[in-house]
């Protein structure tokens, strides 16, 4: 039986961008955890780009996709870019299925994502 089975940590290597490391399961139960991490990463809306690190993602269901949409809306409202990296091929396909890939750029790894941050 599961409740929220996710842990997140936020890195701020540069004032311009923050990275949210996601470990575990992105489901409806992850809402509080993910939104808290997003608020930290936003740094009072001054951060221009937020990167989502899915390297240690174990599982995501459709409610989890809904949470990502909510996060995307918040970032758009704050004029921030949202970028994802570390998604397995399976979850890259799910981004394509739900057309999230048209709003959230996907990169294979962190170095690729960092290189794509607008200067």
């Amino acid at each position, binding site marked *: *039986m599961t409740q929220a089975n996710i842990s997140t940590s936020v890195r701020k290597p540069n004032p311009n961008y923050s990275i949210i490391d996601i470990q575990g399961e992105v489901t409806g139960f992850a809402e509080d955890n993910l939104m808290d991490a997003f608020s930290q990463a936003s740094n009072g809306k001054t951060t221009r780009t937020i990167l989502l690190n899915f390297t240690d993602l174990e599982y995501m*269901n*459709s409610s989890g996709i809904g949470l990502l*949409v*909510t996060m995307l*809306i918040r970032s758009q409202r704050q004029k921030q870019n949202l970028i994802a990296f570390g998604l397995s091929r*399976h979850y890259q396909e799910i981004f*394509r299925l*739900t057309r999230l890939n048209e709003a959230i750029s996907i990169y294979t790894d962190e170095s690729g994502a960092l290189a794509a941050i607008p200067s």
Partner: protein
Amino acid sequence: MSKSENTPKNNPNSWARPVDKLKVSESPNEAINLNVDGRKLSGLTHGFGQLWQKTYKVRLSGIEITPQAVVEEWKANFSKFWPQGNNLYVPLTGIQPGEVGLINLSAPGGLKLSTGVMVIYADDVSFSFMTPEGHMFAGMITFSAYEEDDGTFAQVQALIRANDPVYEVSFRMGFGHKSEDAFWDATLKNLGQHLGVANPQPTQTNSLVDSRMQWAEWRNIWNNAGIRSGLYMPVVIVKKIFPRG
């Protein structure tokens, strides 16, 4: 609060494969098959209107039933729980990831609105649909069951935007939201009664996720399933008067 869920983790078959365009594989003679074949899925980022999260749920009081049993029964009888005159036609394989269902809805003036959905996700405690271009909503709707406070709940959660300006006007004027809310309220009551609940009492929570409209998507009106279904009505009437064979 303690919710529980038992999901088949990492089962890649829970999700549908991406598709460029939808294709209805089977449709019965009585169904109007319009506005689905050849359409793309309408992602949440592509709708026009305000983004709403609407959650409808009902406590299945007085019965002992697992979330898995609720969802199994729900999938097997999905559109039987809908208000009369509305149908979802799914292939014989049922509600499975990747299947495309045809929806015929009763609309004012005797009009039948034809649209559809794709099953994008299904496991033993939930399943989700995404809508095609032209549907009233761009978005995703998830049906689930879970245990909370020593009881079992059935839930419908929609994350939706009106797909085009015409639909948005209807929602702003209250018609769209009112009929949507009444639809899922009736569905949950019917589901509860079917499962043996004496007097199911659905509740509803609405949350406005994004108050902005996406003006760049106003052209979605071209695919409006309501308008296209209305234009097709004379053909339906002729077919009824002069049935084939």
